């Protein structure tokens, strides 16, 4: 049966050499969800994102993206990706903000094809969505960490994705800018109905913007509405995380 979810993982496991990283993960994300994936270090969060993005193949289980089998999925532009700022790029790279955002159009145009005629408008639209339209001629290296991360969101947005996957995007960003960063994500989710999958440690900061929570530590310990997550007992949380976790409000 054709899946109606944006992302649909069934019984996905992943093993690296002899180490089991993910075990029997079943996770469904529907259009417009804002899902936060929480978990301790080494719980397999980044591996899970890489499987969704098609960068890693699961050892077993199935991945469906927008109703298509993961390996047959061709519309790469439907899923945008924003990685941790720290491993994203070399800050001395000579590139303008415009050039960086335009590079996201490769997904839309495909290999060896010219950029579309309206590419300039697409770049300006993407920059406007993240509030950085006046920075297009700046060099990417001269921006602050928070501003750079907005540019990487714009690069993901320029191909008009239906879903954005973000791997700890606020690592290395000043605390005061984290709030406005999440406000911007919530706005994209609300106004453009973009599905968001966010791996994060900022449980408290992000809590009033998300709709769903998934708790991961090799397996999924909880997946459901944020409200149900808030009802979990301390024991449940300890069982998942290994030690006590603050409740989110």
């Amino acid at each position, binding site marked *: 049966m054709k899946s109606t979810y944006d992302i649909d993982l069934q019984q996905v496991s992943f093993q690296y050499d002899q180490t089991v990283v993910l075990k029997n993960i079943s996770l469904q994300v529907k259009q417009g969800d804002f899902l936060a994936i929480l978990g301790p270090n080494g719980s397999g969060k980044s591996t899970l994102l890489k499987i969704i993005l098609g960068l890693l193949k699961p050892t077993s289980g199935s991945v469906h993206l927008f109703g298509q089998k993961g390996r047959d999925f061709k519309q790469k532009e439907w899923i945008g990706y924003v990685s941790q700022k720290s491993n994203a790029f070399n800050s001395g790279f000579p590139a303008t903000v415009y050039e960086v955002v335009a590079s996201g159009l490769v997904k839309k*145009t495909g290999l060896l094809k010219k950029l579309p005629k309206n590419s300039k408008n697409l770049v300006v639209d993407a920059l406007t969505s993240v509030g950085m339209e006046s920075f297009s001629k700046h060099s990417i290296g001269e921006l602050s960490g928070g501003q750079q991360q907005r540019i990487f969101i714009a690069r993901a947005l320029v191909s008009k994705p239906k879903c954005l996957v973000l791997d700890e995007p606020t690592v290395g960003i000043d605390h005061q800018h984290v709030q406005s960063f999440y406000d911007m994500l919530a706005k994209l989710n609300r106004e453009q109905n973009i599905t968001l999958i966010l791996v994060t440690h900022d449980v408290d900061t992000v809590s009033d913007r998300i709709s769903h929570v998934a708790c991961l530590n090799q397996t999924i310990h909880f997946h459901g509405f944020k409200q149900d997550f808030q009802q979990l007992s301390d024991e449940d949380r300890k069982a998942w995380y290994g030690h006590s976790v603050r409740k989110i409000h």
Partner: protein
Amino acid sequence: MIEAILNYQFLQNAFASGLIIGLIAPLLGVFIIVRRLSLIADALSHVTLAGIAGSLFLSQSVPFLALLNPLYIGIIAAVSGSVLVEKFRRLYKHYEELAIAIIMSAGIGFSAIFISLANGFSSDIFGYLFGSVSAVSRQDLFIVIVIAIIVVVFLLLFYKELFLLSFDEEYAKASGLPAKWVHLLFMIVTALVIAASMRIVGILLVSSLMTLPVAASMRLAKGFKQAIYLSVLFGEAAVIIGLVSAFYLDIAPGGTIVVTSIIILLIVLLVKKIWLSAVIKRERGSLV
């Protein structure tokens, strides 16, 4: 000088090849530098030397091969070296720079053997090592033109893919870019440029023409395209000034081209420093 160029074919060959190399070496060099592969150019140039030395040795021992342009064997050696570098980079995934050391040693080792077998250094080998104004034949020029066309077509077709791959490899792969193949093609084209450049700048100095103009441009450029334009401008300036001085001073053009590139780099660094201190002074002034 202009009259000499009009009268002598060898000078026409040298200047035409020089101008073409001044374009393609820094053009590709920008991608090499931002991908942190500057030492690979060195490794490949030494493999090319092995090919050239091998060809010179064979031409001595097999009379029939004396007619073969050593550049062809040099090109084959360079391209094979580029494919092998990639193989070793994948084999030693966590120590990728080992691939450069392995290929470079192999290149120097084979070069030493072939040069010894060919009875030591000849003027031919000297020309290949440090470049030559007089040794560029019409056939060499045609090879340079063909390689230049390949480079320009490659960059026109793959510009946005190479930019993405250079800037953020993980994102490029997540975008569905066949990173492995694009990279392999890039390495092969780099090998071709190295083989094409060695007649003018020489094998030992070819990587300098790919890196020094780019090093200067990166201090000034805000964007990637700007870095490309400035690199080509500095590359061409170095080739023209270097060739003219080599002609008048009767010395190897490789040396004069590289030294000119270094002077350009130093001027750029100095100008940038003066400009930056002027900006800081102005900002301090406006704060008072």
